[in-house]
């Protein structure tokens, strides 16, 4: 059999033809063809194989309802594995391959599985591969399953454009009802959007030769012209794939093969669905053979693509059969009329249909066109939980207008209105917001049930190879709910997501359970209506735009100094300076700082100003530590807790004056702390007496730390000279530096004398350069975060979130004072006194050492009690080789750790056990002599 174009068709340009390949064979297609229409025009009928039994599969439909025709396509060196042949526009040079078939769709080696299908029915995998363990079988099954091969290419430019739009009225679908609705609304002065997923608008209508007395094509053209003239926005190739809360519609706009679609988030006051209806298959023996087409697809291929599905065509249809007969006859296609209700109806053929058997005869045909009824396309209506009711005369669920979601309307065949006149007049009423009760009783469509014989050869879901018998088995095995039957049999899980199979499945289930279809109910429709590439939802937020770090003003300077830039708490910061091995640089920077001084960019530190008459009391409430007695010029370290009592952040608070405080929280928590402060400020406090200004980005901070820090700072051009006896640890002062305010705080994270110097951000480079210039002859230089991390670990200082988890309370870290003594209320206070908080087996902050010649303890290692089945009693949170002490050190949380100092403990990591000694977390300058030097 070889099909070819009978005429030009409306959508294709037969003057512009080109080559493409299918399974290695060169074929010809035309501009406007889909892959499916071009294959059919070339006489290719077998396009793939079934998912489970590898039976030959052909094209059934002509658009998104297609359950079978998935192909793998390569164009311009880009391969996509799962292209729907019926919707993908053909382009010059496309290499099309069948999927789930080897070596090709026509000769598939696994076709032998078909012979085994007696044993591979519903629930086969569940029943067979449970013992001893599913994971044993999974790799083999996964290898056999799946459609197409994922390409290993990464398309860097596959990034979706996203837009937000609004309109008064959105009309989805440009069939006759949609066109009339759009025109009416637009001419009434509303801002209207009309979208259709087809590549050509108005091409979906092929049943009627005349509409309102005018030739259908010219009627459609007239409507489109009027709609555009009335100012409407009209898009083809645009799918409304989902309706979300508050009338937001997701529109996917195709941009061509292997190009990321555009996502338009359209907020519409009213949404009118004119999404039409989809042909149902008929159930009879071998109804899955290639060469069997839906009635609407056969008409679509004929009228829009000029492709006839056959020369002698069987027609078994419950709806509009006469009309179809006439259309076929006009194109000189011989039609064999068949009774769709005939119990003996069956198809015969090996790779494709060759003849049909009826109760009276055997007819030789080269194609069979069937229609088992129509299913209104109500997906979008259901996304918003629109009510449905069973319309008996057409055997379909239709939208119940009395249970309409806000702003949602349905017209035309999607509303179950199958006569053109009724559909058009109803669409006009709906478009102008007038109530309308259309007559749905004008047409009757029977619903033939599955034949009683050969139930394992009547296919419901052709791609997932689900038969009527599979549904029977599911019912026998007591699966009663439609949702369970769907999952047990995989019915409706083909690429069309049940657009063709859903109603047949419901009918088979109802039949077997001897109840009516409405009693069985319907499975839930969820967005998206068609597959949407995940990148579409992400838009620009991909690659380097997915969680980009915050950037420092001094980044170019750090780069010039050869800094390694790493992500710390959402910031890109210098980890160490220099190329090559990190360890060597870190060791060197630690020793430099301990002996001379290090200069660290600490600009990411939080700088949140809290001002107003209630500022002091407010901070005293928000912080664990007392702040009611903090004097101006003084700084205090403290914790911010959650109401559950766990440590959320640590930082220092400066008292600038009685009504002004500076919260210097950790750099990774600035946004969170600011939000916490704002929510406590407005909920439970007087917001008119407290103001929170997050000025983190206004100030750059450079820390000078080490024994030479004082000399370096005093060499800056400042009007004052720092004197350690007066300027004690945890104090700050303000000075003028090059006509700008300079804040100097004496706080330390390294354990050495440190000064945090803050200037307005645009002055940071000047200060940095001055400090490096002054530091150089003193052997002081830039210091990265890694070395700082080592030094703080030597001092036993925590990093919240690294050394603490969601259960760590301040007293676990040795900060017990406020819990015992603070009388004012504070966030999390009551939670510090629950039974859990008082437990003697809480995990407490300790240090660990191992002998000098042993390897470091890995971070994340568990501390375990002995025995055959070790149980975790703690975890190692930080571990370093200390250059200062020349030995490995580690920190962690250990059950009742404070009572175990000096004990040996077992460390478990990746199945290996070793020993470590529990020690105090402070390894260096325990007396604080260096820190408090004055």
């Amino acid at each position, binding site marked *: 059999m070889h099909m070819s174009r009978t005429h030009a068709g409306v959508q294709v340009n037969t003057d512009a033809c080109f080559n493409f390949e299918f399974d290695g064979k060169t074929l010809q297609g035309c501009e406007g063809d889909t892959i499916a229409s071009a294959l059919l025009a070339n006489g290719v009928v077998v396009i793939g194989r079934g998912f489970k039994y590898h039976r030959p599969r052909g094209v059934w439909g002509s658009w998104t309802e297609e359950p079978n025709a998935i192909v793998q396509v390569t164009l311009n060196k880009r391969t996509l594995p799962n292209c729907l042949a019926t919707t993908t526009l053909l382009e010059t040079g496309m290499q099309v391959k069948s999927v789930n078939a080897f070596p090709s769709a026509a000769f598939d080696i696994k076709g032998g599985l078909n012979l085994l299908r007696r044993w591979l029915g519903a629930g086969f995998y569940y029943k067979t591969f449970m013992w001893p363990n599913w994971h044993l079988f999974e790799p083999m099954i996964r290898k056999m399953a799946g459609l197409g091969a994922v390409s290993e290419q990464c398309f860097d430019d596959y990034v979706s454009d996203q837009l937000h739009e609004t309109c008064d009225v959105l009309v989805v679908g440009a069939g006759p009802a949609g066109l009339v609705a759009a025109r009416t609304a637009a001419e009434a002065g509303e801002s209207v959007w009309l979208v259709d997923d087809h590549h050509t608008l108005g091409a979906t209508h092929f049943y009627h030769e005349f509409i309102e007395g005018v030739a259908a094509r010219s009627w459609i053209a007239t409507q489109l012209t009027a709609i555009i003239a009335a100012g409407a926005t009209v898009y083809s190739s645009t799918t409304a794939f989902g309706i979300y809360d508050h009338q937001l519609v997701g529109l996917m706009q195709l941009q061509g093969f292997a190009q990321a679609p555009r996502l338009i988030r359209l907020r519409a006051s009213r949404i009118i669905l004119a999404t039409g209806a989809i042909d149902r298959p008929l159930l009879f023996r071998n109804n899955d053979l290639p060469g069997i087409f839906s009635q609407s697809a056969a008409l679509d291929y004929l009228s829009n693509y000029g492709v006839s599905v056959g020369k002698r065509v069987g027609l078994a249809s419950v709806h509009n059969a006469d009309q179809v007969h006439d259309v076929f006859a006009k194109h000189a296609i011989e039609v064999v009329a068949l009774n769709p209700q005939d119990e003996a109806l069956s198809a015969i053929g090996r790779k494709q249909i060759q003849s049909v058997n009826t109760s009276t005869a055997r007819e030789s045909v080269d194609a069979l066109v069937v229609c088992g009824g129509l299913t209104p396309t109500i997906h979008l209506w259901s996304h918003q939980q629109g009510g449905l009711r069973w319309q008996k005369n057409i055997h379909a669920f239709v939208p119940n207008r009395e249970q309409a979601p806000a702003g949602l309307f349905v017209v035309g065949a999607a509303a179950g209105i199958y006569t053109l006149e009724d559909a058009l007049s109803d669409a006009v009423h709906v478009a102008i917001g007038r109530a309308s009760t259309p007559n749905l009783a004008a047409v009757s469509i029977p619903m033939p049930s599955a034949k009683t014989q050969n139930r394992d050869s009547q296919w419901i879901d052709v791609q997932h190879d689900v038969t009527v018998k599979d549904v029977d088995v599911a019912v026998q095995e007591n699966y009663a709910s439609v949702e369970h039957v769907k999952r047990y049999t995989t019915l409706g899980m083909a690429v069309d997501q049940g657009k063709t199979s859903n109603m047949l499945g419901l009918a088979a289930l109802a039949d077997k359970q001897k109840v009516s279809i409405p009693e069985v109910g319907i499975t839930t429709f969820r967005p998206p209506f068609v597959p949407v590439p995940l990148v579409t939802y992400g838009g620009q937020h991909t690659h380097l735009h997915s969680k980009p770090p915050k950037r420092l003003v001094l980044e170019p300077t750090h780069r010039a100094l050869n800094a390694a830039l790493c992500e710390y708490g959402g910031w890109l910061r210098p980890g160490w300076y220099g190329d090559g091995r990190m360890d060597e640089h870190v060791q060197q920077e630690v020793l430099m700082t301990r002996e001379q001084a290090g200069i660290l960019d600490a600009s990411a530190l939080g700088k949140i100003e809290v001002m107003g008459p209630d500022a002091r009391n407010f901070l005293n409430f928000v912080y664990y530590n007392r702040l009611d007695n903090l004097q101006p010029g003084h700084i205090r370290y403290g914790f911010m807790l959650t109401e559950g009592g766990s440590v959320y952040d640590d930082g220092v608070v400066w008292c600038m004056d009685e009504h002004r405080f500076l919260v210097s929280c950790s750099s990774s928590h600035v946004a969170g702390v600011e939000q916490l402060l*704002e929510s406590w400020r407005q*909920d439970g406090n007087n917001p008119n007496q407290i103001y929170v200004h997050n000025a983190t980005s206004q100030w750059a901070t450079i820390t000078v730390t080490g024994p030479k820090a004082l000399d370096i700072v005093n060499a800056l051009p400042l009007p004052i000279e720092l004197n350690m006896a007066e300027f004690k640890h945890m104090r700050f002062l303000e000075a003028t530096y090059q006509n700008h305010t300079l804040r100097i705080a004496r706080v330390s994270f390294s354990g050495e004398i440190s000064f945090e110097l803050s200037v307005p951000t645009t002055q940071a480079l000047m200060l940095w350069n001055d400090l490096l210039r002054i530091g150089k002859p003193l052997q002081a230089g830039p210091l990265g975060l890694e070395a700082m991390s080592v030094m703080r670990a030597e001092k036993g200082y925590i990093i919240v979130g690294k050394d603490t988890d969601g259960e760590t309370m301040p007293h676990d870290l040795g900060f017990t004072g406020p819990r015992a003594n603070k009388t004012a209320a504070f966030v999390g206070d009551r939670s510090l006194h629950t039974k859990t908080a008082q437990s003697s087996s809480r995990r407490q902050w300790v240090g660990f050492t191992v002998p000098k010649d042993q390897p470091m303890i890995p971070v994340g290692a568990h501390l375990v009690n002995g025995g055959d089945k070790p149980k975790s009693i703690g975890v190692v949170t930080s571990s370093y080789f200390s250059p200062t002490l020349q030995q490995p050190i580690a920190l962690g949380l250990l059950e009742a750790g404070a009572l175990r100092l000096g004990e040996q403990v077992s460390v478990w990591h990746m199945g290996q056990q070793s020993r470590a000694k529990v020690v105090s977390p402070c390894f260096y300058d325990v007396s604080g002599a260096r820190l408090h030097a004055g």
Partner: protein
Amino acid sequence: MQQFPCPFCGERDEREFHFLAEAGKERPNTTVSIDDETWARYLYKQRNEKGEVQEIWMHLTCREVFLLKRHSVTMAVSESVSLRQGC
């Protein structure tokens, strides 16, 4: 994607908002003795109602904390009320 009315800014889409708590939770006075049950009720017990709900939300951009009345099934928003007086 929902739209919420900030009592100060007006309609904005949900990406600008953050749920804080169910409305009506008063922090117990922790300067006096409170039993575990009272504290747990404040800290953990959620009504999680189906239907009309009253919640405290924050408009992240302008930092307004407000009362939002909405329907947890239909997602319809009925009202948003400022918690601020004298402003």
